[in-house]
């Protein structure tokens, strides 16, 4: 029954390894098409800076998707928390960068906890619950700001943290990814998220508090969305109620490309990172290879579908291989 896996099989058998292969291929193609001007240090740092929000929130989305849930309220939470700290600066109430980040994170955590409680205790479908949140938090962002912006001048000190050339966003990203990598692989909490998504009933029987895990997962998602709110204000040096509108789908897409299953139980931090990176590189590469930005949505959509179809086909082939091992 046991057979040694060939090197090639191991590469293509692991989601992450095959993503790396695809990424390398993509980079080679883009480098050639752009005449060798793609992989410059400034381009690379641009890719991370421009996609820091997606990459950060993708970690929370990974956890949510692992429990077979979904959260589409994240950019609304981002807008609400971002707008709040924008206004705090606009009206000169607070200018301490650390405290502003903390406040944004706390607001996000609160919003996420509410989502989590409604979903776990109220047994409301995640997409419905977070759809409500999506309208409410975005709506609150408009109401508290009275549809005004906090301008670059208003947030001038705060935006130093995320301005071009500052290492702030990279450090946050690096810390977040390292922490999540450890938590998801080596702590019982991380493994419980997998267990709940893989088989909630079995998890309950093994004494895992499923409701608690689900609440915490949405709370973590909210925390990251809140942090992203502050990061967004800092990077783009402004706060407006419509910021990052519709970008929650980018976050979900990054996860899906990274091999996170929408049915729960399957997905990894490394895969999520690669998925987000892949998405970011495509977005950056399109103009460099001569495709205007009007093509971006079309191309992104095709990529998401292609990757997911590929995923389905590989999974089917793997299931089939498993079945063939059974002796009849």
């Amino acid at each position, binding site marked *: 029954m*046991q057979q040694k896996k060939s090197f090639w099989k191991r590469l293509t058998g692991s989601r992450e390894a095959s993503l790396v292969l695809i990424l390398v291929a993509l980079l080679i193609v883009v480098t050639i098409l752009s005449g060798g001007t793609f992989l410059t240090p400034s381009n690379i740092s641009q890719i991370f800076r421009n996609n820091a929000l997606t990459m950060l929130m993708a970690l929370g989305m990974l956890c949510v998707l692992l429990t077979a849930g979904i959260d589409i309220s994240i950019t609304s939470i981002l807008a609400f928390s971002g707008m709040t700290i924008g206004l705090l600066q606009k009206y000169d109430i607070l200018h301490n960068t650390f405290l502003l980040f903390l406040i944004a994170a706390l607001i996000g955590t609160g919003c996420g906890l509410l989502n989590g409680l409604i979903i776990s205790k109220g047994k409301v479908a995640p997409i419905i619950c977070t759809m409500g949140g999506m309208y409410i938090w975005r709506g609150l962002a408009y109401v508290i700001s009275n549809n005004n912006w906090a301008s670059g001048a208003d947030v001038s000190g705060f935006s130093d943290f995320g301005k071009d050339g500052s290492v702030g966003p990279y450090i946050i990203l690096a810390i977040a990814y390292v922490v999540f990598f450890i938590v998801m692989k080596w702590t019982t909490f991380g493994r419980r998220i997998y267990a709940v998504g893989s*088989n909630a009933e079995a998890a309950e029987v093994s004494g895992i508090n499923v409701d608690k895990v689900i609440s915490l997962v949405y709370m973590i998602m909210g925390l990251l969305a809140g942090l992203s709110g502050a990061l967004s204000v800092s990077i783009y040096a402004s706060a407006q109620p419509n910021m990052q509108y519709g970008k929650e789908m980018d976050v979900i897409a990054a996860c899906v490309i990274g091999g996170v299953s929408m049915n729960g139980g399957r997905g990894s931090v490394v895969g999520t990172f690669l998925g987000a990176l892949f998405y970011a590189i495509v977005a950056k590469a399109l103009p460099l290879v001569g495709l205007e930005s009007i093509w971006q949505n079309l191309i992104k959509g095709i990529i998401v579908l292609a990757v997911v179809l590929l995923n389905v086909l590989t999974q089917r082939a793997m299931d089939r291989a498993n079945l*063939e091992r059974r002796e*009849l």
Partner: protein
Amino acid sequence: MSDDLILELKGITKIFPGVKALDQVQFQLRRGEVHALMGENGAGKSTFIKVITGVHRAEEGHMYLNGQEVHFKGPKDALEAGIAAVYQHPTTYPELTVTENIFMGHEFKKNGLIQWRAMNQEAKKLLDRLDADFKPTEEMGALSVAQQQMVEIAKALSTNAKIIILDEPTAALAANESQRLYRIVDQLRDEGVSIIFISHRMEDMYRVASRVTVFRDAHYIGTYDVDKITTPDLIKAMVGREISDMYPKPDVEIGKEVFRFEGMTRTGYFKDVAMTVHAGEIVGVTGLVGAGRTETLEAVCGITKADSGHVFVDGKEVHIKKPADAMKAGIVLLPENRQTQGLILRWGLGDNVILPIQDELAKGPFKVKNEKKERELSKKYLEEVDTKAVTIFDPASSLSGGNQQKVVVAKALVQDNMKVLIMDEPTKGVDVGAKAEIYSIMGDLAKKGYGILMISSEMPEILGMSDRIYTMCKGRVTGCLDRRDATQELLLEMSMEKGNNEKKEAAE
């Protein structure tokens, strides 16, 4: 053996909405004994186990562990008290590794971090103890049902439990795997573990248990020493009556062939399966869980896709790609899970019954629903099967399991081109009274000249109702017996041994 009780339950009553699942039952487990718990499906055994393990909380009753009264708030309490259960359906995490499945909930940790290497090593030790032929790092979903069951047992062992409950552990195992399990059970008993062993198989009980407790219809019937009770007495205790009056099998003239399929193959599920049914004939299909019976017939009916195979109705080949094709050809399936596949529980009975022919009844080019005709027909057929419903507007969910099954039968009858009725575990989860009624409906249908194919794991039912019996094992037909030649022992043997012998021959 002294009366050194490790576990005692008294006066346990558990009520689910509309059903008393347990009514004042009691149970005593001595230290270091293997105690069999027997009873028909639906007798309350699984519910009882879930009360012991804290998954369900009983409305009434007391539970004593080592003489001390205990109240478990959840499964975790039971685990900590040293009670572990291996459930009938493996409750596994298919996406995670074997190691994780074993240690979920009690991982090895150091400084808050999981010790994967130590866990993998410990898992390997546990699997070696069970003679398992797979690695701890394999993904659970890739294992067979029998292998998953072993992981579940390893999981119980890993908690160092003092009481282990095995809920039908041999149902999915082949004979040699069962032997291995018996040895493990012996070994655990010698180590001082007390074991509750639930099984439908008499041989399990005789081989491993010293005492047996019988439940019937949510009641405690009695506890007996295994070497002092005879099989007929035990069956009578379980069923509550002499078994002969359960099965009103009519003598029907067997007609010409109505239904045949051959060469049905689906990789990993079944291989080269062929069966024939004649008019007026009831054909039983038996085998252990995982033998591929349901999978084969679902493929025949177009619910799943077979890789290859031919289906014939009245001698003519029919091509079935989807369930509607099977219905058109006159093949009707009563699915195993009537609650999810057989009925729309929230709908009224009438709407459920006429669903397959709603389109045919509809009027005009826009297919307007013909409510009057629908009502007439559904009423007629519901009366034919004698459901205990007041009106055709009652939701299907309001009926008991047995009556729900009758509604599914009515739904089959309404398709007037029906020639063959395939029944998958027709009396699963149905109480004794309704069972007899379903059998009598089956008899009537056979008299009318329909061909009936019945999948069942319950030996008495197979022996009592079938004209001919196919046995399946590991995705192949292992034999076909005439009613006169069939015995329980022979059928069990064919469901297990023969399959293995054939495989050996094939390997040589």
